[in-house]
């Protein structure tokens, strides 16, 4: 089980064991990680599961598709080069240690 680290708004880190195949958003919801709202439940409709991915991992992820790319333009917190929607990142064994930072606000 890969470990995912979530850096919360208050600067603390929550580290959780993720199931391979689940999304980074689902993993956060399952472990009650605060700051990932996921209002649409992961259907890539709402941009409320925005995270900043630690630079070292950006290149290991499948790049955003057109829908995600468009939605990232509508996030409540500023879009940066490492912005992703966590519902679109599937956990794989290669993502052991993946670190994402929760933004200031999702809505």
């Amino acid at each position, binding site marked *: 089980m890969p470990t995912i680290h979530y850096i919360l708004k208050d600067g603390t880190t929550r580290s959780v064991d993720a199931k391979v195949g689940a999304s980074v958003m689902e993993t956060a919801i399952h472990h009650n990680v605060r700051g990932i709202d996921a209002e649409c439940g992961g259907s890539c409709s709402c941009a409320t599961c925005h995270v900043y991915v630690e630079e070292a991992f950006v290149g290991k992820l499948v790049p955003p598709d057109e829908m995600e790319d468009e*939605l990232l333009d509508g996030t409540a917190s500023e879009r940066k080069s490492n912005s992703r929607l966590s519902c679109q990142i599937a956990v794989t064994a290669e993502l052991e240690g993946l670190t994402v930072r929760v933004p200031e606000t999702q809505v």
Partner: protein
Amino acid sequence: MDKKPPLVVVGASYAGTQLAAAARELGYDSPIVLLGDESHPPYQRPPLSKGLLTGKTAAESLPLRGPDFFQEQGIDLRLGTRAASIDLAAKKVQLEDGTQLDYATLVLATGARCRPLMVSGSDLAGVYQLRTLDDALAVLQAVTSRPKVCAIGGGFIGLEVAAALAATGAEVTVVQSNRRLLARSVSEGMSEYIAQAHLKRGVKLELGHGVRSLRGLDGRVQAVELDDGRLIECDIVVLGIGVVPNDELARQAGISCDNGILVDHLGRTSAPSVLAVGDVANMRLSSVPGVPDSLQRVRLESIQAANDGARAAASLIAGQPQPYSAVPWFWSEQFDLKIQLAGLPATGDEMVARGELSSDRFTLFYLRDGVVAAAHSVNRPAEHMQARKLIAQRVSIPVADLTDPSTDLKALAASQTTKATP
């Protein structure tokens, strides 16, 4: 020991769960009891008519919160529990199992139930409704071998079920008495687009036809009889003819109801210390952006309204009232189409298109007195997000700018002068 009576929340779907969670986030530290009448812990409903039926979403991924959430948050979640009556004077709720609960504040998040089809044969085997996880699992079990499906009702549920089952190989017919699909929610142009989208993808439509009866053999449905006498053969029927608010508890207690429980921008009902949120709440929406002035109240059946209405009510409970003010929005998925709706269109709005409808990527904007009041997008999630901001800011944009695909809506939202909020 804490002797203060708890906050009692009746109903544990989106609104009830969000209310309890938001109250805790805002620092409310008295006991909370959350009552759910289903056996499942709170779960996501949108995938029930979409991904769950196509196999894209597994039932295990549906819980709204992690398994420890309620305990961690000091929320006493009681499943399989129904409230029987409310005693407003004594501030007590009587449960069906005989238990009595005192409450400091009572929140009714009792939701809605499927409207029954009142024709002969609607009790035949093979006739399904779709509201709960158990409903959806029953449909899923029934559609294993490319059945003929008749969806009665051309609203979001009927169309989503039609699309999901057609995508898995079923032969689907949608029957609706209204000539227009989604007539309650979208403009005529959008209705026509959706109809064409379904026809193109192999769904048959019988619009403008009521259902006279359901016909069966040996207790199982075999056909839907239309009002012109024609029979639509089918193995299963899925009903999607709207919902009825579960406002009986409130009515019996003498709380003001009219198509749901009447509440203000903070979820307050006519009774002191009783709030209502979610599908059962008929909310006062005056001065909410994207809502026409003619519509003083509405019962919004959406995740967004449940969440935002619950947040507003929780803010009152936590002593930091923040009235509901969010632009209504919701979404649907049908085949490869992500349909997103922001604001509520009204008769007389000017409708303009950004993008070609035939491309399956466009946004219809609705202008009210020149101000962006609503937008319906297909496969244009960024435009939907921008539209929500434009609607919230009551932005006035020249039609030529709005319909020009090269106009940067984000920049427009940031720069345009806004109309003063009344």
